[in-house]
């Protein structure tokens, strides 16, 4: 955000004119957060979560590249599964902040890659989150498709993938070592102020 503020303040009116804003609504699916074995295998994963993302970007250079910040919130139930039985473990919210680099790909398609952080907010400070919820480093990539709908607005369809490595203080205290690779995929649609 600081970078974006600096860029805007440096370029003032010109930068503001070139700034793209967007908002997206969609759903995010998350892979397994935790794989444990007590007697049978136990897995923990969130359900598919509705998500809201807001972002902004500025051009860098003449070849269509842009740099931007994007924040997203998602909220879903999460559950453990053991021997075919699911147990509701409450609600798990996530917030992500990504610094993105994006560029043109083909016609209305654009690519993007990003680095940032992901914060977990469980509804209950209990179980695997008994000692709190972590902030994890997040890396992501995605594909955007834009279709003009109004003079200054595009319909934005986004397919995103990101991953991070998951653990918590409670898990570390219990003797879990290393971390779990967690992949997330989201599909969303939204409106973007035109960058044409």
């Amino acid at each position, binding site marked *: 955000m600081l970078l974006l503020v600096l860029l805007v303040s440096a370029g003032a009116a010109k930068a503001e004119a070139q700034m793209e804003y967007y908002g997206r609504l969609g759903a995010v699916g998350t892979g397994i957060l*935790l*794989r*444990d*074995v*007590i*007697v*049978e295998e*136990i897995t*923990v994963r969130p359900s598919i979560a509705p998500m809201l993302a807001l972002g902004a970007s500025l051009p860098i250079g003449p070849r269509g590249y842009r740099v931007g910040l994007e924040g997203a919130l998602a909220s879903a139930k999460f559950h*453990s599964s*053991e021997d075919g*039985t699911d*147990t*509701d*473990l409450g609600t798990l919210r996530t917030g992500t902040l990504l610094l993105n680099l994006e560029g043109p790909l083909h016609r209305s398609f654009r690519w993007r890659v990003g680095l940032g952080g992901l914060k977990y907010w469980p509804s209950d400070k*209990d*179980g*695997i989150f*008994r000692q709190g919820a972590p902030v994890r480093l997040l*890396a992501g990539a995605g594909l955007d498709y834009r279709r003009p709908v109004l003079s200054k607005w595009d319909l934005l369809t986004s397919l995103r993938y990101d*991953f991070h*490595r*998951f*653990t918590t203080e*409670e*898990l570390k205290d*219990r*003797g*879990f*070592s*290393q*971390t*779990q*690779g967690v*992949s997330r995929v989201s599909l969303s649609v939204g409106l973007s102020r035109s960058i044409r």
Partner: protein
Amino acid sequence: MNRYARWTIAGLIVAAAACGDIATPIRIDFYEWRLIVPSTTGPGNDSLTFHWPRSRLPVRIWVEDAANLPANVPSAIAAWRTAYLYDEFDAAVVSDSSTADVIVRAGAAPGIQFSRVRLPSAMATECEGATDLDISDDHTELRLPVRMYIDPRSDPAAPGLAACLALTTTHEMGHVLGIWSHSAVATDIMFAEETVTAPSERDLETAEVIYHVPANIQIVDRDGGEVPLE
């Protein structure tokens, strides 16, 4: 290195970072929790293992307002809850004793004729406890309620009584959640003559494992309704 090779290498690095699982601890530091009783079908022993089914959680506990039980019982529940990562066990204090799954009273346990199985009392100096289980003759059913007794057998002003009541309540709560035997290690709160004030890692690991092995005792409600085994 050409462009495709660079992208391939980058892709492989990303894939390697994204893959890989957390390494699970091996739970081997637990003790015998089952109740070993003479078999009803012939020579030898029967081993009874029990945990509260998820459909009955939170376990409803009625607590008498005496012997510091209203404070000690929630503390005991919280102490045992730390064993669980996946909401395997929970309990809540309720106001209506007629619908409770567990009745906790202050005072000495009544005669043994009341119940078929009494888990041996904790024998701290200033107080003692007992947990009574009404188990059917064929060892297949646990009739509710489970009854727990905490007896402050010394002078109410005796030094150490408050600590004794607290640790004995935690010990008996261990029986309530399914540890139906005593530990042979003095540093465990489920040791018969417990002295420690909180569940040890062995206690917690035992409590955790119990909820991941099949029970062979089925709950029967006060109205005779059976709660299926998991």
